[in-house]
C-alpha cells in the first residue's frame, strides 16, 4: 500500500544537518497524486477517476461523457460519467494539488527577506533596515516535510473516499431513477383502469343502471388515481434530476436515456465470509484514522525526543460528512528549554495519542457494525425482492386469472375485474420497489465494506397495501 511507504515513524532528529541536505529534494509529482486516488477508487469500485486539467484533457473528457450519454445508461456508465464530470469531485481533486504544493513548499527553505522600515515621530526619523533569514523554517524543514507528506496522503485518501462515495450515490440515484420511471409507467396503467371504471360508471348512470352514488364512487377512485399519477410522475423527475446532479450534466446532457427496467436480481447472493476483515482492510475512513494515529505517534516521538519541539497537529477530521470544507493544519513551535523541560507537554502528547487510538478503535467498531447491518439489509432485500418476483407477483397474476374466469361466469363484475387489475399493477410496483431496494442495499454494502460506510437501511414498507385497501 502506497501510504505505508511514505509514512515514517518517529525518528530521532538531526535537524541541522538534514535541513540543508533535504532542501532541494521536494518536487512536484507527475500525476499530482491522482494516480494513487484513481487506483484506490478502482480497487474499490472498479472505476477510475479522471481529473480535468484545464487546457489539456477537458475535450477528451467532454467527448467521453458525450459518448456515454448517447446510449441508455447502465449503472456503470452513470458512474463513469459522474467520476469524470462531477464538479464537486473535481474540486476536491484540485485540493490534491494544493496539498502537494504545500508538500513541495515544505521541503524548501523560505527565501531570505529584506525589510526596510521608515518611521517618523515629530522631527525624529527612524529608518530600520534588516535582512531576515528564516532559521526556524530551516530547522523545521524535515518535520514539516514529514507532516506535509502525511497531509498529502490524507488528501489523497480524502479524495478517494469522496470518489467512492460519489460512485455509491450515483449508483443509488441511478436505481432510484429507473425504479421511479417504471413506477410512473405502471401508475399510468392504474390510471387507465380507474379511467375505464369511471367511464363505464358514467355510461351506466346515463342509461339508468346505476345510482349517482355508485357513479360518484368510481369517479372518486379515478380522481384519486389521477393525483397518484401526478405524484409518481414528479417522483420520477425528481429521481432523474438527482442523478443528473451527480453526473454533473446540464443542458443537452439532461436528455440522457434510462433503460425501461432495473437490472435483474443476481442468481445468488454474495456470502458473508470475511466481510468484516475485508472492511478493515478496505475502508478509507479506517485508513485515514490509522494514518492520523500514526501521525500523532510521530508527533509524540518528536516531543519525547526533544522536549522542546511542540507539534500541534490537527489531523483527520473524523466526521467530515458535512459539506463544510475540512479545516486542518498544524503549527510547529520551537521553544527554549529554560524553565520547562517538557514533562507536561509529553503527557499532553501522550493523551492526544491515546485519544487518537481510541478514535480509530471506535471507527473500526462502528465500521464492523455497519458492515453487519448492511449485509443484513442486502440479504433481506434480496430475499424480499425474490419473494416479490417469485411469489407475490405470480400469485397476483393467478388471482387475476381466476378473477377473469369469474367474470366469464358472470360471477363477478367488470368493476371487480378492473379493481383486481389495479391490485395486480400495484403488486408489480411493490416488486419494482423491492428490486430497487436490493440494488440500493447492494450499493450500501459496497460502501460499508469499501468506502466510508453507507446509510443505515431500514426496510421500506410496501406501497401497494395502501392502494389495495382503497379498492372497493
Amino acid at each position, binding site marked *: 500500500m502506497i501510504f505505508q511507504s511514505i509514512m515514517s515513524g518517529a525518528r530521532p532528529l538531526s535537524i541541522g544537518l538534514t535541513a540543508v541536505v533535504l532542501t532541494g529534494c521536494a518536487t512536484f509529482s507527475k500525476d499530482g497524486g491522482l494516480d494513487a486516488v484513481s487506483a484506490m477508487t478502482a480497487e474499490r469500485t472498479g472505476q477510475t477517476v479522471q481529473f480535468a486539467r484545464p487546457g489539456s484533457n477537458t475535450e477528451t473528457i467532454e467527448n467521453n461523457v458525450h459518448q456515454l450519454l448517447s446510449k441508455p445508461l447502465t449503472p456503470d456508465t452513470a458512474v463513469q460519467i459522474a467520476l469524470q464530470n462531477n464538479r464537486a469531485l473535481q474540486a476536491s481533486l484540485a485540493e490534491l494539488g494544493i496539498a502537494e504544493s504545500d508538500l513541495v513548499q515544505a521541503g524548501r527553505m523560505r527565501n531570505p527577506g529584506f525589510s526596510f522600515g521608515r518611521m517618523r515621530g515629530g522631527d525624529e526619523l527612524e529608518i530600520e533596515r534588516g535582512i531576515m533569514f528564516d532559521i526556524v523554517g530551516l530547522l523545521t524543514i524535515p518535520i514539516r516535510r514529514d507532516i506535509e507528506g502525511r497531509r498529502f496522503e490524507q488528501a489523497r485518501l480524502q479524495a478517494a473516499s469522496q470518489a467512492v462515495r460519489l460512485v455509491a450515490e450515483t449508483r443509488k440515484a441511478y436505481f432510484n431513477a429507473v425504479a421511479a420511471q417504471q413506477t410512473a409507467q405502471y401508475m399510468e396503467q392504474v390510471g*387507465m383502469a380507474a379511467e375505464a371504471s369511471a367511464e363505464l360508471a358514467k355510461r351506466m348512470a346515463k*342509461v339508468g343502471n346505476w345510482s349517482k352514488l*355508485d357513479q360518484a364512487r368510481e369517479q372518486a377512485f379515478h380522481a384519486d388515481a389521477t393525483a397518484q399519477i401526478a405524484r409518481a410522475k414528479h417522483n420520477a423527475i425528481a429521481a432523474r434530476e438527482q442523478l443528473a446532479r451527480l453526473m454533473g450534466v446540464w443542458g443537452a446532457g439532461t436528455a440522457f436515456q434510462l433503460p425501461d427496467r432495473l437490472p435483474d436480481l443476481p442468481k445468488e447472493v454474495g456470502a458473508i465470509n470475511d466481510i468484516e476483515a475485508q472492511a478493515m482492510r478496505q475502508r478509507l475512513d479506517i485508513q485515514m484514522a490509522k494514518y492520523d494515529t500514526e501521525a500523532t505517534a510521530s508527533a509524540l516521538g518528536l516531543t519525547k525526543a526533544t522536549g522542546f519541539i511542540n507539534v500541534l497537529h490537527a489531523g483527520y477530521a473524523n466526521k467530515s460528512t458535512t459539506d463544510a470544507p475540512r479545516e486542518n493544519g498544524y503549527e510547529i513551535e520551537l521553544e527554549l528549554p529554560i524553565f520547562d523541560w517538557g514533562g507536561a507537554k509529553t503527557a499532553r502528547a501522550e493523551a492526544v495519542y491515546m485519544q487518537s487510538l481510541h478514535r480509530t478503535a471506535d471507527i473500526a467498531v462502528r465500521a464492523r457494525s455497519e458492515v453487519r447491518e448492511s449485509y443484513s439489509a442486502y440479504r433481506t432485500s434480496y430475499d424480499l425482492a425474490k419473494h416479490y418476483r417469485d411469489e407475490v407477483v405470480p400469485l397476483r397474476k393467478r388471482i387475476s386469472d381466476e378473477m377473469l374466469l369469474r367474470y366469464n361466469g*358472470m360471477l363477478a363484475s367488470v368493476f371487480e*375485474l378492473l379493481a383486481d387489475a389495479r391490485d395486480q399493477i400495484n403488486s408489480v410496483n411493490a416488486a419494482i420497489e423491492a428490486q430497487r431496494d436490493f440494488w440500493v442495499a447492494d450499493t450500501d454494502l459496497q460502501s460499508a465494506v469499501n468506502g466510508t460506510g453507507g446509510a443505515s437501511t431500514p426496510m421500506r414498507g410496501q406501497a401497494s397495501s395502501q392502494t389495495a385497501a382503497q379498492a372497493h
Partner: protein
Amino acid sequence: MVSRRDFFMGAGALVGAGLVTRAGAASLPEAPVMSSAATQPPLAPPNGRPYNPVVTLNGWSLPWRMNNGVKEFHLVAEPVVRELAPGMKANLWGYNGQSPGPTIEVVEGDRVRIFVTNKLPEHTSIHWHGQRLPNGMDGVTGLTQPGIQPGKTFVYEFVARRPGTFMYHPHADEMTQMAMGMMGFWVTHPKNPGSMRVDRDFVFLLNNYDIDPGSYTPKVNTMLDFNLFTFNSRVFPGIDSMNVRQGDRVRIRVGNLTMTNHPIHLHGHEFVVAGTDGGWTPPASRWPEVTTDIAVGQMRAIEFDATDPGDWAFHCHKSHHTMNAMGHNVPTMIGVDQRGIVQKINKLVPDYMVMGERGMADMGEMEMPLPDNTLPMMGGQGPFGSVEMGGMFTVVKVRKDQKPGDYKDPGWYKHPAGTLAYEWKGETPQAARSDSAGGQSMPAEGRQGTIEMNVRKPSGHAGHH
C-alpha cells in the same frame, strides 16, 4: 365388487359395502352402495307385500332383507362425492355412497328395522320425518336418544302405519348435516297396490347448496344466499328428464329440505295436489293447478294425466332457482355501450370480453373458461339451442310410443307439421300503443316533470367484441 342381488336389471352400479358386510355378516344386513348419480330403474319388491315401486330422480331405492317378517335396511352415514352435473362434483355427506341417500320403500303395516351406521366425523341421528312411531324412535339427539357416535351403529324399529310420502334426515347438528346433503326419501305404499295406483311415480327432494365457484365443499353457514338449487342434489343440465307414455297417470312426489319455498311448475298440463305431508288429500278437495308452492319441510304429491305429447318444462318458478352459481352483486349492464372502453380494458386484461350489454343470454351462448368445478350460470343444449337454464329445471317427456315400464330417454320431441312456432316473414306495421299509463288513484304532489328515458332497442351495431 358386484351386486349380490340382482334387483337392478341391467343398470346401476350397486356394490356391496365390503367392510360392513364382512364385519357384521351374522347380524347386520348388507349396506349396498351406489356409485352412479343416474336415475336407477324402479326396485320391484322381491319379497314381502307387493307394491308399485317409485322412481327416484337421479337416485335409487335401498334394497332390504327380510328377517323373521321384519324388513331390515342398513343406512351408512358417510362422506360422499356427488356429481351435481357433468363438470361439477361436490364433497357432501350422504348415505350409502350418494347424497341424498337411497329411497326407502315399504308397505303400510310393514315392521321396519333400520340399522344406521355412522361413518361421519361427528355424531348423527336419523329423524323419520312425518312418521307415526314410538317417541323413542323419532331420532332427535338429546331429546329422544343420544347421538350415534362415529363408528357406532344404532337400530330404529317401528311399524310403517300411515301410507304416504316421507323424508329422513339427521336431527343432530342438523344445520351442518343438512347443508352437507344428509337426507333421503321415504315412501310408504298402501297395503292395497290397486289403491291410489298410478302408472309412473317419480320422487325427489329439493335441496340447496352454497358452493363457492372453484371450490368443492358447501359453505355450511350460509343461511339464505345459496347459489345451487337442486333436485336430489343435481342441477340442470344434470337432472334427468321424467319420461312417460302418453295417457299415463303420472305422480311426482317432492319434499322440500331447502331454506325457502319453491313454486314448482309444470308446462302443458294441469295437475292436482293429491297428497301432502299429512297423507292423501280426499279427491273432492283437490283443485287444478299448474304451479304448487312447496314450503320448507313440506311434501307434495302432484298427479296429472300425461295427455299431451311433447317435451314439457318442469321447474321451480323462482327464476334465480333456475340458474346455477351467479354473481348476485353483478350490476346490470344492459344497454351500457362499452365501445372505446373495451380497448382500454383489453390492455390491462387481454382476454376481457363484453357481456351483459344485451342481457345475460350471452352466458348461455358463449363457451368461456370458468373457474374449476363450476357450471355455467345457464346453459343446457336443446334441439333449438341453449335452454338458458340451470338449477331446478327438468323436462317431462310425454311420448306415444314410450313402453310401459320403460324409463329411457326417448330423445327430443319431433313436432308434427304446423305445431311449431315460426318466424313471421311478412310486413311488420307499427302496433298501436297507448301513450298514457292510465290514471293514478293517489298522484304524488309537487313532482312535476318527467325523467326522460331512452328506450334502447337493439340497433344492428352488435359489434360484438
